[in-house]
Every structure is written in C-alpha cells, then in structure tokens.
C-alpha cells in the first residue's frame, strides 16, 4: 500500500476516534441546553399556512412532533412546566390543528394534558370544539367536551348536551344516552365520573395515557366508596359529615381506600370528596 494511503487511513482513524468522543460530549451538551432553553416560539397560523409551501399536512406533523417532544422531554425528566411552557403547548396545538383540523393526535393530547395537569379548560374546550366541528364522524370530540363540562366545569346541562351529540355520532358506545340522562339528574357524583372515565379509557390505545387514566379511575373509585359512606351517614343522621374522621369513627367506612396520588382524602364544603393531592402526580420543582 502506498505511504500516502496509509497516512490517510491513519488520519481517518484518529479523526473518527476524536469525532466519537466529541460527538458524545455534543449530545450531552445538547441535552443540557435543550432542557434549559426557553419555550419555543410558534409562528401565527396565517404564516404557517404559507410556510408550509403546500405541504400543510407534513408541516402539521412536524410541528406536532416538535410540540410532543418538548412535552415528552419535560415529562421524562419530571420537570414542572411553567406558564410559558403551557402557553407554548397551547399555541403549538392550535397551530397544528389550524394547519390540519382533522388531525386527531393534538386533540387527544390537549384533553389528556391541558385539563388534568394545568386546568386550562377554556383552551382545551376551544381546541375540542374545533375538532368537533371538523371531525364530524368522531363521537370522541363531543364526549371529551361533555366530560370537561361535567367533571371540571360542573355545567351538567351543557355536558348532557354534548353527550347527546356524541351519542348521535356513528360508533359511539350505547351507554351514552344513559350517561347523559344520569348526568342531568345526579350531576356531581364520583360514580358518574367513573362511568365517563371508563368510556375514555376504552377508547384510548396509548399505553402511557391509559395508565394515567386508570390511576385517575382508581382515585375516583376511592372517592365513590367514600361518597357511598357519606350517603348512608346522611340517611342515618340527617346531616352531612364534617370530615373523613367522622365517617370512619361512625363505622360508615371500614378502611379508607388508598389514594393513588399519595394525598389525604378531604370533604369539600360543596360535599364532594377530593384529595389534598388534587389528583395530580407529584412533580419535582
């Protein structure tokens, strides 16, 4: 082999060694930088439609990937999201659905995160309304809306309306009319919530989201158990119990159900059973 070739091979090998070392450092550095980087910026939708250069679907996919990576990274490292982070998520999802209003994933992500995690019901509902308008064949959009109105906003009539809308759409589960009726009569009860959640869980395929919903269902089941005790307490004594301790002391509840988020059960002044954890997973600050 000519000496020149040997020299070149040596350069390549030495360079490749240096490169792999640097490459590791670079990726580590990028990870750190990304976690420190402020929230991104999303172009207003009017610009996005132009920027997409005729590939709106592809651009929507790209934006969604960006949004979900941003969210996923913070989930993974259990970092809490700031108000700006949530703003970014909302504008991102808005932009994606403006580009492609039929795209299901952003609506699911909105329902799964915006309501439970940060209580941005108005943002979530606005997105879902858009989804309901465009995805006319999809019963899930009004179903999610119905759930939000029932569970978070306590607007039972509106919730029942959405549920009826959902029940008229193809493929909707047959318990919806029953649920709608129950909603307008009983309103604020953990059992109604459980029924709702079961519906959502059954239509969710994503494992991670499903696991978190199952956790919520477990919490609601605990709450339902306590509510049952409260009902019996009311029937016997003609008044609502002051706190959980009164219930256990009176023997209305054998052992307190486990609170899966690690909080303490409390009875709210409204008479609803809730937890000090607010049913949200503890995050590191």
């Amino acid at each position, binding site marked *: 082999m000519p000496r020149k070739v040997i020299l*070149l091979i040596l350069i390549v090998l030495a360079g490749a060694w240096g490169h792999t070392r640097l490459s590791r*450092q670079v990726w580590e550095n990028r990870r750190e930088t990304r976690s420190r980087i402020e929230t991104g910026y999303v172009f207003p939708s009017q610009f996005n439609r132009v920027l997409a250069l005729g590939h709106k679907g592809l651009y929507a996919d790209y934006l969604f990937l960006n949004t*979900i990576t941003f969210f996923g990274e913070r989930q993974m490292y259990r970092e809490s999201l700031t108000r700006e982070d949530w703003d970014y998520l909302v504008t991102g999802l808005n932009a994606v659905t403006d580009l492609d209003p039929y795209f299901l994933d952003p609506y699911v992500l909105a329902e799964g995160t915006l309501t439970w995690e940060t209580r941005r019901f108005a943002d979530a509902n606005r997105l879902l309304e858009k989804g309901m308008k465009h995805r006319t064949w999809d019963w899930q959009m009004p179903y999610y809306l119905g759930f939000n109105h029932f569970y978070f906003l306590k607007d039972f009539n509106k919730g029942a309306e959405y549920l009826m809308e959902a029940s008229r759409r193809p493929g909707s589960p047959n318990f919806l009319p029953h649920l709608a009726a129950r909603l307008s009569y009983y309103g604020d009860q953990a059992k109604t919530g459980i029924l709702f959640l079961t519906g959502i869980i059954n239509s969710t395929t*994503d494992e991670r989201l499903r696991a978190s919903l199952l956790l919520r269902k477990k919490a609601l089941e605990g709450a339902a158990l306590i509510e049952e005790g409260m009902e019996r307490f009311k029937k016997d004594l003609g008044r609502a119990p002051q706190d959980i301790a009164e219930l256990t002391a009176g023997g209305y509840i054998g052992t307190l159900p486990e609170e899966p988020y690690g909080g303490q059960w409390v009875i709210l002044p409204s008479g609803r059973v809730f937890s000090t954890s607010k049913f949200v997973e503890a995050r590191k600050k």
Partner: protein
Amino acid sequence: MNRVWALAVITYKEGIRNRSIFGILAFALFVLGLNVAVAGFFMREIGKVTVDMNLSALTFSGLLLVFFVALHLMAKDIDKKTIQLVFSKPLSRGEYIVGKYLGILCFVVVSLLVLAVFSSATVLLVRGLYPNYFAGFSWPVFFTAGFFILVQLAVLSAILILFSTVTTSSFASLIFTVCAYLVGVTIEDVVFYVKSGFRTEQISEAVKQTLDVVSHILPNFAMWDFKLEAAHGLVIAPERLGLALGYAAVYIVVVLALACLCFQRREFN
C-alpha cells in the same frame, strides 16, 4: 501548498462569477424585504422575528450556494472531464480535494459576507423603525449565530465533496448531500423524542440502535444552531462555542480524509 492554493483560487473565481449567485442574492433580498414588510404585523417581539427571518434567509441562501454552485464546481470537473486536464499537471489527488475544498470555502465565505452586510442593514432598518422592540437584541450574539451558519455550510461542503468522490453522477451527490443535511438537522429532535419515552413503546430496539449509530455518524447540525440565542440575545457559554467549533473541525478533517481515500482509488474515463 502553492499548488493547492492555485487550484483554490481558480475554483473560487469560477464560483463567484457564476450567474446563479444573482438568483440566490435576489432570493435573500426578497426574504429580507419581506421581513421589513411584515415586521409590523407582530405585536411584541419584532426584534426576535427580525433575527429569525434574517438568520433563516442566510441559512437558506447558504444552502442554495452549496447545493447548486458548489456542487457545480465539483461535479463539472468530473462530468466534463476537466479533471483529466487538471491531473495532467503535477497535482496529486489529495491536493485536488483540499484545493477544491478551500476554493469552495472561500466562495461560500465571501458570498455569505455579502449577504451578512445586507442582513445587518435590514436589522438596522427595522430597528430604526421600531426602536422599542429590540431590547433583547445583541450584535455579538447575532454575528456568532451568523458565523455558525458558515460553520454548518463548511461541514456541508465537506460532505458534498465526499459524496462527489464516491458517486459517478452529480445528481446522486446532490441528493445524498441534501439527505445528509435533512437528517443532520432533524436527528436531534427524533433522538430526544425516542429517548423521552413518551409513546415510544412501539418503536423497536433495532430502530433505536440504528438511530444511535446514525446520530454519531452524521453531524448534529443543532450544535451549530444559535438562532434561538440570537433571537433572544441570550449569552452563549464559551464552552459551547469551543465544543461546537472542535466538533466541526474534526468532522471536516475526517470527511475530507475519507474523500481523499476514495479519490485515490477512483478512475476517470
């Protein structure tokens, strides 16, 4: 070295006189003009939007320079057999690669400097129109980001030369280089997405491993992307700059050495 430089000089001159440059310049000016026109549409961060659009215009124009003019400089030699004439002179194949690379680099640097002058003028103009919205703006960070666009183009030119030495058609080397760039700029998001573990159970191990290998073979262009910092006038840590420069330098050396190796074996019909 004299021989390498002589080749670099004619490569540079051939590139800088290419008519396509005017088209690319027109494109850049159009984007910059658009920037001035739309700046008022934004409510708060006019400075940020201006920087974004300027740096993106520089990047796009730079890419066009590399993908079309620089590719042409490399490919025409082989397609039109000029290389046979060049190799009938006492110029080794390694010297040819290095000379061509230096010529292309000079060409890209000079063109980008011209564009940077226009870009700075745009920033000054918009800043003059909306002086209240440029609080976070900093010239040093802006120019640092601009310089790293140049670094990206330098890496890309090296990749272009490598592909030109291994493929027989200029179109193939164009496609490969464009792909390398697209993968290089998106790989980071994909890798971190997969690592985030968010809805990634369905992704197979094989894909993850391939991704890992690719992420170390192709350069991670995000390392040389300081557009975000420039947009918000954030301070960039010196270690990051050093690491980015070292990463680029080593990558270019490896790629050019590989190109030389491939060229030693190549036959010219």
